[in-house]
């Protein structure tokens, strides 16, 4: 039995089904992420775990106990809000001491516990400050310290890094990973940022339209997306769809409109004529001036239509004669040379048959 069991949870707002029959088991000590676009139901699900909202159907169990009758203040879980929700009229210490006071902790124990919590989130010496005297990152740490000071069994985080700038966000991600390892508390993390989810999580549930599309480890989610939605939402992805035209030696051939036949190594038993999709990451594609590909590769000639110089990499959008566009990515690893090709260059794109991932839809 998992620590936190979400069983067939459904939540409707009028005609709109925000969370649709979701079942997830979250293990003790896990860093679990609910990932999805806005409106996918991830925040609604988190609020039902916290107790701010109640499911219309299904149950939320903690250690096997149904939480339906427990209001948020009586659930052994803490939430970190996107806006931090620090009490502006209390100092950092006052904020962190608040849950201890609510739990009727003896006054003599509060001081040391607050100090320890502030150390955990690296805020030593800032205890006397008021929230408005802190930077965004510091506020975030206070919110986390305040939530962790009573050692809850689960910490719920609602897009906690969304308001921070990119560099700080990366630092905080590393700190969150370390903190979660140190305290050993189960984290349930909500985000719409797929790189954040991949970097932080032990497991990710990708949500779309109230349903869980895929629940897996980050590398599986990225490498082996189960649905078109997951492939498209996580990172950049070329999606080639078309009916199955041939099968030989564990390699299917798809008839992709505007590109032509595309081959993919897969064990899928999809019969001929059925539509399938190949998900192919841009970094798996080779791009050359002339044909070098061996016979096991898919290779196509096209013209560079757009390029995006990103510093570390350059993204090329290569137009096919049929009108399709293939996105390829080249690392700018050679010094002194930012671009290999220019818009209008004729190039050869190719990838091995086992570079992509086959989706049966």
């Amino acid at each position, binding site marked *: 039995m998992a620590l936190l069991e979400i069983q067939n949870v459904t939540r409707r707002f009028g005609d709109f089904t925000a969370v649709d029959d979701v079942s997830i088991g979250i293990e003790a000590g896990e860093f679990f992420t609910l990932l999805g676009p806005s409106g996918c139901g991830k925040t609604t699900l988190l609020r039902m775990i916290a107790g701010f909202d109640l499911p219309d159907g299904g149950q939320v169990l903690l250690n096997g106990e149904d939480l339906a009758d427990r209001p948020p203040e009586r659930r052994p879980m803490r939430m970190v809000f996107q806006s931090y929700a620090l*009490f502006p009229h209390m100092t950092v210490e006052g904020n962190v001491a*608040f849950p201890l006071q609510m739990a009727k902790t003896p006054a003599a124990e509060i001081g040391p516990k607050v100090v320890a919590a502030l150390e955990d989130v690296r805020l030593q010496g800032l205890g006397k400050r008021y929230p408005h005297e802190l930077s965004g990152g510091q506020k975030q740490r206070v919110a986390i310290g305040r939530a962790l000071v*009573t050692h809850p069994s689960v910490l719920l985080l609602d897009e906690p890094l969304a308001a921070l700038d990119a560099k700080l966000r990366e630092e905080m991600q590393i700190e969150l990973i370390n903190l979660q390892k140190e305290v050993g508390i189960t984290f349930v993390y909500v985000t719409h940022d797929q790189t954040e989810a991949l970097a932080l999580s032990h497991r990710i549930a990708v949500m779309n339209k109230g349903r869980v599309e895929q629940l897996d480890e980050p590398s599986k989610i990225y490498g082996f997306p189960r649905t078109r939605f997951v492939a498209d939402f996580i990172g950049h992805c070329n999606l080639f769809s078309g009916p199955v035209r041939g099968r030989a030696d564990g390699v299917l051939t798809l008839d992709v409109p505007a590109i032509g036949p595309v081959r993919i190594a897969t064990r899928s038993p999809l019969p001929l004529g059925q539509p399938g999709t190949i998900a192919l990451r841009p970094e798996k594609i080779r791009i050359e001036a002339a044909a070098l590909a061996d016979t096991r590769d898919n290779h196509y000639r096209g013209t560079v239509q757009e390029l995006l110089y990103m510093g570390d990499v350059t993204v090329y959008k290569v137009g096919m004669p049929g009108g399709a566009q293939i996105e390829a990515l080249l690392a700018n690893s050679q010094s002194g040379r930012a671009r290999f090709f220019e818009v209008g260059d004729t190039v050869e794109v190719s990838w091995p048959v086992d570079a992509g991932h086959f989706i049966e839809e």
Partner: protein
Amino acid sequence: MARGRGRGLGRWLVSGPPIAYLIVFFAVPSLIMVLASFRTPGEFGGLAPLYEDGHLDLNLESYLRFFEELVYARIFVKSVWYALLTTLFSLGLAYPLAALIARSSKRYRDLLLLLVILPFWSNFLIRIYAWMIILGPNAALAKTVNGVLAWFGHGPVPLLFSSFAVLVCLVYVSLPFMVLPLYANLEKHDPALLEAAQDLGASAWQRFWRITFPLSLPGVYAGAALVFIPALGIFAIPDILGGPEDSLIGNVIKQQFLETRDWPFGSVLSIVLTVAALAIAGLAAWVARGNLGTPSSRREERA
């Protein structure tokens, strides 16, 4: 240079008229009143001549009278007490109302606010006279109260012309002045703070006393000032609804100017009233800064 001077001129054009208005109609009359408090009352009311027989007639007679005749100090204390009670009762009634309005949906909010300020559309005196009817001996309220009292073997009590009537009407008149600043404050509260407090283990009661109330203190102070200071000087309500024992300092001041026509003594009473109001407000601000409101007032400063 030219631009700077132009901006200075613009600033004077904008802020000049109100400053001039305040000087002419507030500062100068106040100074005249201060001067009058040191003068001698005229034989037939008003003021005796300032220059007489070549010497300036300024004295402390009226001040001495205030401090010697304790009846005035007593009325003063009573007025402060009534104003304090009015403030507390208004706060107690206005807080739930303001909270209700602040939490209702946008559609009803405007309607409810309109209802709060609706009384301002009719005349102040007419509204006070209306209370004479409501509290009158033949009205349902008095009959019910006295009926219940008779049940317990108690004789009938008059509701009208009593300190009860004065207080009820004072609270009634003050209520909107308490509701509006409180609403303005409560409406800005971030609901996430209450959710966070609840998530951190606070009961509804603790959420109110630890989060909502401390954050609403600037609104409480603003409302208290708007209620307390006018209530301290009011004379129409005790005049119309009070009994002989319910005269407040406002009535005495009015009496000195309009009936007894002792302007210097009336001026003394007015000055004492102003000084007392300032002292009490200053004391309240000092207590608040020291003990309760530091963070919220600091927050206000930043905002």
